[in-house]
């Protein structure tokens, strides 16, 4: 996950850097002599991967640019004066120079399944951050660009920090967690994984078979409960899910259990009655945590769904499933943005221990190629 986005982000950094450098070179070019190879470089600079001619790179590296640049002209027998009356040594990053790379950046985000609206917002943040920034002549703008990107993405992901483990530890028992989401995102499997994880941490877990609608749903969660050796509270098919979950909470209270994990039926967010059912569950249960489950394979619709579910039953955090299916990971960014709540876990496969805690800082570090923490 995130490998292709990471490459694209680095490419963006590189492009902007090269572009800015080409602009520097171009200025020297016009000031010095049109016949220098720099003029050719300018034309190439508009295409994506411009590498300045080797000579100039060397020059830039070997000598302080501020001293070197004007003398270059002098050596060729001409006096160099800063053109257009502004300093050659300081330059502003201009909007028109960024237009093309920013569009490429947006495409890169879209390719990684970041939803359109969210991509636009990240690109805007980066744009705002960069445009008008003063930079020195021949300064490496890569670092500036990276910081802007990092901020743009972190701003979206690092929201209302909620530590799942801390919350379970500190909340009065039993802690009730309700899982919601559309059909087939992996709610039940995720509940089994979370139950497995909590059980290993020494908590007593109760499952509530809140999906009373789908054929086979009862059997599915029953089998998980058997495999994991945890208690399952269930009614028959067609029962009121709020009642099932309520019973599970009562049971947990009476038997001093620690955590209730409540399943709900998958529902499409345009179904008004089913969304109202969620509202009822919220009224009856007053859950400590509402977890929205969606799949990493989802595209733009992830945003709309998350918003609709959030309206019916305020989401406290999300879990992203099927991350192992070679997903691009952008969905994490979309959902975190739509709900303004953190991503708690990632689901990585079909086994009970295929679940990892999600950490935005880790993701950003990974995107920008630092050591994993």
């Amino acid at each position, binding site marked *: 996950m995130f490998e292709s986005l990471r490459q694209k982000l680095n490419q963006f950094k590189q492009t902007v850097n090269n572009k800015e450098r080409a602009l520097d070179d171009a200025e020297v070019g016009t000031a010095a002599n049109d016949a220098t190879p720099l003029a050719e470089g300018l034309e190439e600079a508009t295409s994506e991967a411009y590498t300045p001619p080797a000579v100039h790179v060397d020059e830039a590296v070997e000598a302080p640019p501020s001293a070197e640049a004007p003398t270059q002209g002098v050596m060729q027998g001409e006096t160099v004066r800063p053109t257009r009356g502004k300093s050659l040594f300081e330059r502003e990053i201009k909007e028109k120079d960024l237009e093309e790379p920013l569009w490429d950046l947006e495409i890169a985000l879209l390719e990684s399944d970041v939803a359109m609206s969210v991509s636009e917002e990240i690109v805007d943040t980066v744009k705002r951050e960069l445009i008008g920034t003063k930079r020195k002549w021949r300064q490496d703008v890569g670092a500036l660009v990276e910081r802007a990107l990092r901020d743009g993405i972190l701003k979206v992901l690092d929201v209302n920090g909620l530590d799942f483990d801390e919350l379970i530890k500190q909340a009065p028992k039993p802690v009730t967690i309700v899982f919601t989401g559309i059909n087939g995102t992996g709610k039940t499997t995720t509940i089994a994984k979370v139950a497995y994880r909590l059980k290993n941490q020494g908590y007593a877990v109760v499952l509530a078979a809140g999906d009373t*609608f789908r054929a*086979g749903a009862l059997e599915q969660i029953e089998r998980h409960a058997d495999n994991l050796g945890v208690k399952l509270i269930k009614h028959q098919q067609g029962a009121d899910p709020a009642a099932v979950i309520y019973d599970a909470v009562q049971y947990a209270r009476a038997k001093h259990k620690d955590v209730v994990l409540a399943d709900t039926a998958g529902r499409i*967010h345009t179904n008004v009655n089913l969304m109202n059912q969620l509202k009822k569950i919220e009224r009856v249960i007053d859950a400590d945590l509402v977890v929205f489950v969606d799949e990493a394979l989802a595209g733009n619709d992830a945003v709309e769904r998350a918003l609709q579910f959030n309206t019916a039953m305020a989401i406290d955090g999300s879990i992203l499933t099927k991350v192992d299916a070679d997903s691009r990971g952008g969905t994490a960014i979309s959902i975190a943005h739509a709900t303004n709540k953190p991503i708690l876990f990632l689901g990585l496969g079909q086994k009970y221990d295929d679940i990892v805690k999600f950490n935005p800082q880790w993701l950003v570090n990974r995107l920008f190629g630092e050591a994993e923490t």
Partner: protein
Amino acid sequence: MVMENLGSSLRDTLKKIARANRIDEKTLNEVVKDIQRALLSADVNVALVQQLSKRIKDRALKEELSGKLNPRQHVINIVYQELVALLGEPISVPLTRHTVIMVGLQGSGKTTTTAKLARFFQKKGLKAAVICADTYRPGAYDQLKQLCERIGVAFYGEPDHSNAVEITTRGLIELKRYDVILVDTAGRHALETDLVLEMKAINETSKADQRFLVLDSGIGQQASEQAKAFNEAIGLTGVVVTKLDGTAKGGGALSAVAEVGTGIAFIGTGETIDDLEKFEPDRFISRLLGMGDIKTLVEMIEEEPPIEMEEAEAMLKGEFTLKDMYKQMDAIRKMGPLTKIVQMLPLGSLGVDIPDGALQSTKETLERFKVVMDSMTDEELEHPRVIRSSRIKRIARGSGVTADYVRELLKYHKTMQRAMKGVRSQKEMQKFLRKQGLK
């Protein structure tokens, strides 16, 4: 919502070209960029969008404007043709003896779709049977078995056995007297090598004539790659797109069929067993672009089909009855759960702009209006004028709403009636009626 803004920005740009009498490159670039955005936010594959926009641009500049078309229609027509080409022909299933294998990613809706398909064949008078070859997901056996029992379709499965290939072999023998045999398989993705091998083996064993990929309409950029992998493994003959009752636009499905070179056979539009519809490219494309009237537009371009004059005349005279309104609402409702329905309401097409979001609960309202109208007598539907307070009370009681709500409905009807009177010329009328789905 952002998506609505997107739809309206596309509309704005198209309006802009409509005013221009020829397309210059700058305007075209703007339009193409907007179309790109619409497609990208509908989850169409990025590379595909780039190819597509290049072709659209080339064609729009090269091809002559035919006399009938204004530039807007010209561009939309090209977009439409290109999208239709990508979608391929809708796949129609043979109504003869055959075997179908259902494959797809986890949670895409294979099991539900299998049952729906069995029901489809059953309704066509064929004897359908289902084999459960999903030995991985807990509850998969029970789910399919219960669904089959509900519709009275033969079912074969072995809950305690874990070899899906052997189960399939035995199932085929057991069910050999049935006409259509559907094999449901476990969810898997392209990177799960073992599972891909298993799928190949099940496919070979079953000698399936139809190999359907079940694809979630909400899938993003992964769609084409996953479809490609499935296709390489077993050679797909069609795609079933599920969960189209939500808000997903299904661009992933478009990318998948474009990649594989097959077509869409069915779409799933709900949780109940009959919520399976045959695929209609026009409606799908309208949804993709967020434009309600693409079919109308294209039809208009091709030829002006005659409309039912009686209906048209009745409406022109202002006798727009509640029955007409009912039909109209039904037509609108069938367009799918679009908040963009706004564009298709008469006020919108009469050039009155309704702000996005103003009619957010349109679908809900339409449905409730229909319920209220169901509580009316024929006389009341034909002659709304007879509805007075005691009838209002009765209707309200019958449909479970307040009397005020019934009055609101009548008020809405009056507004519509007035709008209808406002439409003057015959030509305008025809266009308008077609937009309303009244042919």
